[in-house]
């Protein structure tokens, strides 16, 4: 059993710019059809099928409604899986500055670092959304550019998380 395609499951083209209200309507409609509550009186095999399909529906909805999860999924379909823990070179300067702030424990510097990371995340989000159009239009360079943005975003999120605990 190869994993069914989430976009196909919803009857959608694999596009990143998604109408969320439409996705929700499709989710509700499919839920009414597939949810285990609707098949309680059927034989065990049908119930198991409903359980599997319903889990798939929920997993797919959770993935597609979130812009980052959706994009990661779309890239994975193209064989461009995440590149874990690879520090993007353009961020190295930021990280050096942050580590220095950590050493001296200067509250002002730490706070500045935090807001800088938050700004970088917002910037990455904006970049990501601006690439939805080119991706959906079939621009061959879009997937790799999106991959780079997502890698950077993931790295920034990790930094933000550690920064929050300091």
């Amino acid at each position, binding site marked *: 059993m190869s*994993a069914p395609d989430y976009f196909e499951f919803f009857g959608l083209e694999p596009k990143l710019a998604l109408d969320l209200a439409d996705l929700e309507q499709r989710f*509700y409609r499919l*839920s*009414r059809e597939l*949810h*285990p*509550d*609707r098949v*309680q*009186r059927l034989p065990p095999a049908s119930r198991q099928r409903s*359980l*599997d399909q*319903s*889990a*798939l529906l*929920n*997993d797919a*909805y*959770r993935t597609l409604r979130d812009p980052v999860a959706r994009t990661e999924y779309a890239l994975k379909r193209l064989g461009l899986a995440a590149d874990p823990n690879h520090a993007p070179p353009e961020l190295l300067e930021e990280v050096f500055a942050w580590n220095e702030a950590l050493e001296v424990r200067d509250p002002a510097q730490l706070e500045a670092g935090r807001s800088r990371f938050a700004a970088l995340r917002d910037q990455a989000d904006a970049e990501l959304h601006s690439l939805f159009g080119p991706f959906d239009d079939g621009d061959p360079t879009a997937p790799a550019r999106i991959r780079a943005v997502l890698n950077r975003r993931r790295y920034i999120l990790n930094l933000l998380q550690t920064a929050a605990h300091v």
Partner: protein
Amino acid sequence: MSDLLQIDFGQREQSPVIGIDLGTTNSLAAFLDLTGPVVIPGEDGERLVPSVVYRSPEGEIVVGNAARRMLIDDPSRTVYSVKRLMGRGVADIADERKLFPFRIAPESDAVIRLDLGDRTFTPPQISAFILIQLKKNAEAYLHQAVTQAVITVPAYFNDAQRQATKDAGRIAGLEVLRLVNEPTAASLAYGLDKRSSGIVAVYDLGGGTFDISILKLHEGIFEVLATNGDTHLGGDDIDNRLLRIALEDVATEWGIDPSNDGSLVQTLRRAVIDAKERLSFAPRAAIDLAWQARKYQREITRDQFEALIRDIVDRTLGPCRNCIEDAGVTPEQIDEVVLVGGSTRIPLVRQAVETLFRARPHTDLNPDEVVALGAAVQAGILTGAVDDKLLLDVTPLSLGIEMMGGVVSKLIHRNSTIPASATEVFTTAVDGQKNVLIHVLQGERELVKDCRSLARFDLKDIDPLPAGAPRIEVRFLIDANGILSVTARDQRTAKEQSIEVKPSYGLTDNQVEAMIQESFAHAAEDLRERQVREARLEADQILAAVEKARANPAWDEMTATEQALIERALNQLLTVYHSEDHDLIRAHIELLNQTTARLAEVMMDAAVRTALKGKTL
């Protein structure tokens, strides 16, 4: 099933599915009739069945109000608030033991055993006694055997607590069709779907647990956006605050240590609860104790009471804020707030909710009954009697696996709509390795030691290959009850991989099976009584069906001999009806079935003809 009965019930082979609220303090059952969900009263006519179990020296089990009285007369053979122990190990309950007179048997470890006279029982077994009582009440009320139920659990219950509840159902001889989260069940009962869409918060403060759920309603779909809570926070904690003061008073005034006298403590506990309940309506109330010709009294004002419990009420606010945040809404976007659970009668609780949600909460339905009523609606959804509503619930806690260095890697995040699944591929670290151990945890923290261990899954009989070569695909599935199951498959051979499950807390399947057997062995009497009762219920049904059939035109089509045979079988069944021999009753039911077979046939033909005629017209 008899042919006549099939006609009578429109060919549906449906026995009623009841909804059960298995509460910390009180339990109750409800079912859906044509007018909507209704509460099933107990033997004594009371609607609430106190979740108290007493075991007499002769081994007789008493549940409910009668058992609650035994808390005072014979406290060492009586258990209450056992829900607090469901799905927990001895190490978990150090705090509870300071406040509750649980008599934990020394052999307890991952599964707690409670002393009840000369025998020990696990919390699921004790809960099963409560369920058996509710089942009995329902059968007496509905005049039908009841074998299936929907049972509610706190939304914030973890996997082990849910599993323990399901085990209790099995031990009680009930097939648990669904576990429903209490706040979600309450929202079903409220008929909130009358508004076509909106955001609703359900604040549920019961005897021992607190839940908050935020739902989005859309044309009959109840979609839970987020849930949060505390499975050890409730009215019990408030009682214990008052009780501690009263115990200190009595110790000083009477010069004795009352805490060693179980009977005195329980009498005082009753007095404290009475005072608490009166304080919800009056500005002051007295704790009144009369005990062996001695008296103790202390007046408490509502202000004093509120100062005493404020921090308990405040503890509910953190989960509420987290839930609002997880739901991705602001308090202003929440259209309605619903209060559930007896503790929400306390004015301070209502104030706190009003302040936080900036909305006056709904209190139209009895907060003690609304959960059971909702469970009955969910039962109707499962049987198909209700087809315009659908509940989409979430898992309250993240599910993860242990990674190198004691870190948890999350696979399914909290507030994911269930059923939900995740797939991970595992491999080996050493050449020829044949087993891989997967440790599954539930919780929000990063480290294994801060999460709740669910189970260890041992992937066995892996083909001996070089390290890293095997690829075992493991699928984690949380079903609509919020319970995890795990399956594994070898990606190379596509073969199902065998897994051995070692639950960290709670009972293994074999243990539950043994308890079901044990409950029969120890209750052979009970079993016989049940079989007799069920046989009589069956007899009631067929007798009623024959009575009805005699008024049918088909009756006149029977020959005189056939009619006489039916009369004879019917009279014979009536003669043996009160016998204690269920086989005898069943044999006569069968005879009546056989003699009425042609009558049923003729009636069925007539019914079909009428239906066809209707079509051609």
